[in-house]
């Protein structure tokens, strides 16, 4: 899953360790999310969204943006 985490972090001039401290997770967790090797759980995604003052779908992109199920 693509995400804007690295950009958002860079805009605030935060290191991975600083972001990890703010989220209360390990630096490895931040790195794994940024590089797309790990998709965060819903609670962590909400925490990220609150920290950056954005909606989850503005940070994460599952590649289906703009597509709606047709039933």
């Amino acid at each position, binding site marked *: 899953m693509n995400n804007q985490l690295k950009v958002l972090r860079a805009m605030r001039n935060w290191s991975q*360790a600083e972001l990890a*401290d703010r989220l*209360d*997770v390990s630096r*490895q967790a931040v790195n*794994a*999310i940024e590089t797309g090797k790990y998709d*965060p759980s819903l609670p962590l995604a909400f*925490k990220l969204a609150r920290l950056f003052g954005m909606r989850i779908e503005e940070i994460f992109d599952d590649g289906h943006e703009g597509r709606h199920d047709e039933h």
Partner: protein
Amino acid sequence: MVTKDAMMNIDPKSQRRPSMWAPVLIGLGTAALAGGFAGYNQAAVEHGDAALAPWVGPLVAIAIGGIALALYVRRHADWFRSWSPRKRLYWISLTLSGALGFVAAMVMQSGPQGSDGLFSNAAMTPTVAIALSAMSVIGLAIALVLYHRTVDDHERHAYHLGALAGFYAFVFPCPVWWVLWRADLAPPVEAMPLFGLSLVANMIVYFWFKFR
């Protein structure tokens, strides 16, 4: 935009991270000290002298290492106070697990059976066996409860995959070994090699998903 959550945290930039060399050196020094006691015991046995009880060396080493670690934490108290309760408990659980594993390994290594003591099947006194069993069950249970309550999302994921790999590393070879033994094609099934294989598989997969 900085939200309430962000403002509630202490600004990490205001905290100076202490050198990580000190705890590494403390760990190495503790291991070296315990190794010195083990070497003394081995030499004593070889010369026909009385050896120290196997638990003396590891406990003295861990006590000195513990004091050194406490002094290090005290010296950098501001840094450690900036940690969240979750992070503090997480590191306490890891340190406790490491200390327990270290003491258990050193007690076995310090036995009269010599340098192959750690993986040996040699006889053990009931006192040492009961103490090691109690330490493993009670100590590890406490450390694991702390660990599982404090581990973050990403590490839990790595832990689960590692646990699965460890499970498969037991489930596949164990029955194969057993049926081969029944056909007289293999020696009797032993628990410790399977335990070791399971642990190694667990560690490889865990570290891969945690640090890749």
